[in-house]
């Protein structure tokens, strides 16, 4: 039995190899797409899944009217929530971004860029797998550190690292614990350092992530209420007297900060704040869209499969007819057919697996992931889906075949069902719609990207080398040394530093106040060197820039950007106005004098609205002097590599020999801010290619089917004298109609969706019109080509064969 099936299958496939290839490749793409999305989904869902406390641990975010939602919290909250709220068993503060550190043991130096600062009870919240040592030991002393297995083996190879003394930033530490992160985790740190001393109660610094472990089954709404109460009782109310306001007035005027609780188990995909740990956040919506899309792709490939199979079923009608007259039962026929489809389905599955195995490395690199195919659960799901789809798509043509009336089949007569035709046309129209949408999407995204890349940013990013400065101590002194020496280099035209390196995303702010008018708001606080305005070629609109000759420029001078000046209400006449900033502590009675105003420039990412910002010299507030993140060099375009080598040599000798010499050109650095959109662009490009390929397969399938069914009509028309042109037009017509209907839906819908996408950008292009012209042209051309070629073939049929009657 099986042997006959296989023999028949191969004989038929030989005749219909093109249909077979189209069928299998469509399904292969569909399965591959679904598999990748499932793997990706699974990976995103698996975050913190290993953590036994995941249901009880909540991150605290703070929501306020002024600042929206902040994912970081204060030490006061950490201390008071625990002491005042019975449901809060324990709290912990953890640094929210990975830091870079160098570990030194004698001659061995190891660098890690995944350092997390935390408190002794870290492992109570995140019980990593302990390889060596103990977490109790870790918690005993703040000089104790814990290392990941990988980092430990970099230092000591296979030897034990427990008890070893390590120097970090000049301080001694003892390794007490080596761990392994059991799975995707909120923190995947390589080095755990402890804060040097316990936190003092402070309401002002939102520097760390705060986690609370609640008692089992506590009511989170109640806990939130209690937390909000703590903030009012312990922070807001005590200040009322000094400000001479009632609680109601404060609520009315400023609003009161409230907390949000985000459960660790779901924080990766369902975060309320715009952050889900240093490893990044998941995008649930994107996942759903991808899942929906991949399912749609499968459905479409199935429909295409059915169409094509039905078409070849008609061709095979004779075989069926003969078989039926020979007494084959309907059941046997269906089995033969289902077997063939199942075989094709499993082949597609296999090819899909191979394809995914081949594509995964690229996908991993692209998404910065580490996904493997070896995921039993996902694979089982996929195999299940493959078998079910195969059986489903097998039954339709099988039933179609088996229900032929024997005589009719022998005559080569098939009726065409109206309903079937409409359903098929709708599916094809849908495919055109999706393809067209992706095509338009790609073109619009491309336009916006080009706009972003070429837009004037308000500063010059060319020929600027940015060298990272790590936690060195005495940073300003070292900067001065670099500047004095390297400025003399023949290929270096300038050296400067600013706290904000455009594109860094590390922008911090403080209050900027114009007390005379009682105006105050949060503004970007950019500490710079004297020459920065000239160095970055910012556009000075009013007043002057900082100067080394003027002593007050390191004491009371401040430069504003346009937005800041506008918000302060001094845009027309800013020079000489006296302002204050939040960095001034009690007793600091200085009045800062506005000496200049610069044109707004993109000191943050491109996709962020330009906020109010001020420039101030590093020395104005001595404690900021050691907050230098990077030193910038303007270099000439000749001999760049030599220039960089010279800087590196000087750097290693005089500035920093522990941390890696890390540099990047500012334009490349800034380009990172479009990375997200570049990824969207790539993703759209890939998806649109797949969708368009599958649609073309679908078009091919349906064209094959309909033309197959109309061959007799073609023969009649030809006999009556129709020319090749007339016949082709006749055959293409119905497809053109579907395309045109799809286009009518496509254009407004995609216009609306792309308009929405563009609205994500603060600085955006006007919607370009040409994608809406090109896409219809491309679609129509494709339809003409695919259907046209098929139709042309149809005109070459053997007339007699289709007119003849036995």
């Amino acid at each position, binding site marked *: 039995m099986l042997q006959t099936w296989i023999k028949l299958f191969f004989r038929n496939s030989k005749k219909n190899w093109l249909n077979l290839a189209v069928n299998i490749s469509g399904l292969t793409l569909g399965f591959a797409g679904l598999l990748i999305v499932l793997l990706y989904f699974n990976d995103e869902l698996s975050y913190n899944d290993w953590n036994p406390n995941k249901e009880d641990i909540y991150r605290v975010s703070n929501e306020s009217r002024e600042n929206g939602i902040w994912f970081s919290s204060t030490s006061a909250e950490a201390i008071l929530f625990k002491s005042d709220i019975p449901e809060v068993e324990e709290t912990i503060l953890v640094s929210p971004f990975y830091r870079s550190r160098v570990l030194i043991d004698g001659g061995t130096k190891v660098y890690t860029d995944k350092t997390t600062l935390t408190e002794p009870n870290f492992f109570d919240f995140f019980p990593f797998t302990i390889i060596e040592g103990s977490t109790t030991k870790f918690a005993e002393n703040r000089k104790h550190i814990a290392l990941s297995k990988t980092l430990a083996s970099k230092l000591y190879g296979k030897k034990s690292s427990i008890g070893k003394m390590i120097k970090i930033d000049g301080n001694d530490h003892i390794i007490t614990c080596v761990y392994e992160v059991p799975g995707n985790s909120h923190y995947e740190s390589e080095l755990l350092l402890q804060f040097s001393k316990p936190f003092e109660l402070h309401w002002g610094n939102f520097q760390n992530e705060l986690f609370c472990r609640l008692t089992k089954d506590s009511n989170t709404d109640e806990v939130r209420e209690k937390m909000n109460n703590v903030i009012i009782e312990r922070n807001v109310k005590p200040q009322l007297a000094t400000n001479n306001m009632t609680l109601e007035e404060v609520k009315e005027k400023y609003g009161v900060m409230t907390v949000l609780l985000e459960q660790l188990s779901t924080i990766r995909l369902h975060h309320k704040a715009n952050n889900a740990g240093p490893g990044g956040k998941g995008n649930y919506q994107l996942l759903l869209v991808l899942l929906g899309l991949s399912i749609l792709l499968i459905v479409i490939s199935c429909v295409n499969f059915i169409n094509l199979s039905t078409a070849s079923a008609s061709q095979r009608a004779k075989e069926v007819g003969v078989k039926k007259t020979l007494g084959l039962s309907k059941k046997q026929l269906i089995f033969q057919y289902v077997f063939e489809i199942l075989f094709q389905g499993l082949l597609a599955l296999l090819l899909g697996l191979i394809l995914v195995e081949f594509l995964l490395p690229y996908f991993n690199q692209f998404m910065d992931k580490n996904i493997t195919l070896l995921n039993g659960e996902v694979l089982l799901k996929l195999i299940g889906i493959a078998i079910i789809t195969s059986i489903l798509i097998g039954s339709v043509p099988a039933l179609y075949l088996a229900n032929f009336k024997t005589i009719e089949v022998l005559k080569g007569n098939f009726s065409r069902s109206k309903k079937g035709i409409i359903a098929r046309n709708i599916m094809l129209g849908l495919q055109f719609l999706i393809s067209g949408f992706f095509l338009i999407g790609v073109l619009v995204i491309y336009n916006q990207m080009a706009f972003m890349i070429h837009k004037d940013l308000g500063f010059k990013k060319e020929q600027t080398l940015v060298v990272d400065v790590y936690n060195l101590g005495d940073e300003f002194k070292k900067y001065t040394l670099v500047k004095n020496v390297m400025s003399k280099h023949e290929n270096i035209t300038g050296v400067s530093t600013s706290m904000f390196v455009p594109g860094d995303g590390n922008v911090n702010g403080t209050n900027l106040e114009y007390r005379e008018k009682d105006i105050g708001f949060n503004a970007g606080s950019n500490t710079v060197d004297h020459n920065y305005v000239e160095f970055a070629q910012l556009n000075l609109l009013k007043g002057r820039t900082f100067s080394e000759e003027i002593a007050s420029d390191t004491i009371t001078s401040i430069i504003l950007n346009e937005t800041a000046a506008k918000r302060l209400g001094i845009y027309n006449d800013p020079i000489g106005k006296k302002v204050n900033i939040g960095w001034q502590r009690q007793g600091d009675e200085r009045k800062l004098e506005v000496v200049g105003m610069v044109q707004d420039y993109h000191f943050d990412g491109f996709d962020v609205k330009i906020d109010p910002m001020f420039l101030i010299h590093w020395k104005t507030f001595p404690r900021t002097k050691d907050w230098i993140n990077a030193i910038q060099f303007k270099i000439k375009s000749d001999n760049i590599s030599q220039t960089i080598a010279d800087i590196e040599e000087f750097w290693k000798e005089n500035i920093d020999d522990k941390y890696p010499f890390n540099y990047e050109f500012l334009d490349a650095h800034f380009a990172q801010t479009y990375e997200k959109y570049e990824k969207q662009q790539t993703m759209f490009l890939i998806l649109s290619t797949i969708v368009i390929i599958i649609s073309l397969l679908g078009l091919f399938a349906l064209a094959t089917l309909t033309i197959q069914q109309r061959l007799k009509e073609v023969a009649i028309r030809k006999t*009556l004298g*129709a020319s090749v042109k007339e016949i082709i037009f006749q055959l293409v017509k119905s497809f053109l109609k579907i395309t045109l209907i799809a286009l009518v839906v496509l254009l407004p819908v995609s216009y609306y969706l792309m308009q929405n996408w563009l609205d994500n950008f603060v600085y955006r292009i006007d919607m370009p019109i040409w994608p809406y012209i090109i896409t219809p042209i491309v679609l129509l051309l494709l339809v003409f080509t695919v259907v046209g070629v098929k139709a042309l073939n149809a005109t070459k049929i053997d007339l*007699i064969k289709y007119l003849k*009657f036995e």
Partner: protein
Amino acid sequence: MITLTDLTKVYRTEEVETTAINKLNLTVKEGEFVSIMGTSGCGKSTLLNIIGLLDAPNEGSYSFDGTEVAKFTEKQRASLRKANIGFVFQNFNLIDELSVYENIELPLIYNNVKSSERKQRVTEIMERVGIAHRAKHFPLQLSGGQQQRVAVARALVTNPKLILADEPTGNLDSKNGNEVMELLTELHASGATIIMVTHSSYDAQFSSRIVMMKDGEVISEKTNTRDIDVLVE
């Protein structure tokens, strides 16, 4: 009008070689109504297809209206065919998606007849074959006889020099078959040249000459003496 000399048609498939027409000679004059008879598989349809320029012979000559067409390319055959020959098939070969009117109109469209003239000619011919009241119907809504009359109308609408009918009554009951035969006889009377393949000797009696075939050859010819004018009225 038609002269076939040593006409031969061989079908070659992977396994076998079938000689469908074997050195056949036949002449048909203008205005004749010829019936071709013979056992199934003796090559009648093949012969008709070659005469109808749907197919080309392997050997021999075929002169149509004085032109040698045996070696014509497909394109040449097509243009000669559309201007000069009308077909009636056993299975009608109407296009199910088109109405009666549209089916009949098709050959005119392909012969580039202006639309006003088309309308007139289609209406005329529908009257003549008696299906004017079914103009807006679709083939599947008609009886077999009606369908065949539509097919005859379609074959006539271009005023072809030659009408070919392959078992036109094969799918019809005797009443409907008779109607169609009367139609053909009428046409013959008004001067049309008709070649018809048939199994029925009754039907063959309507024609002016009967050609018997066997194994791809003409084995006998018989001129019909019966006076058909009686039937015409």
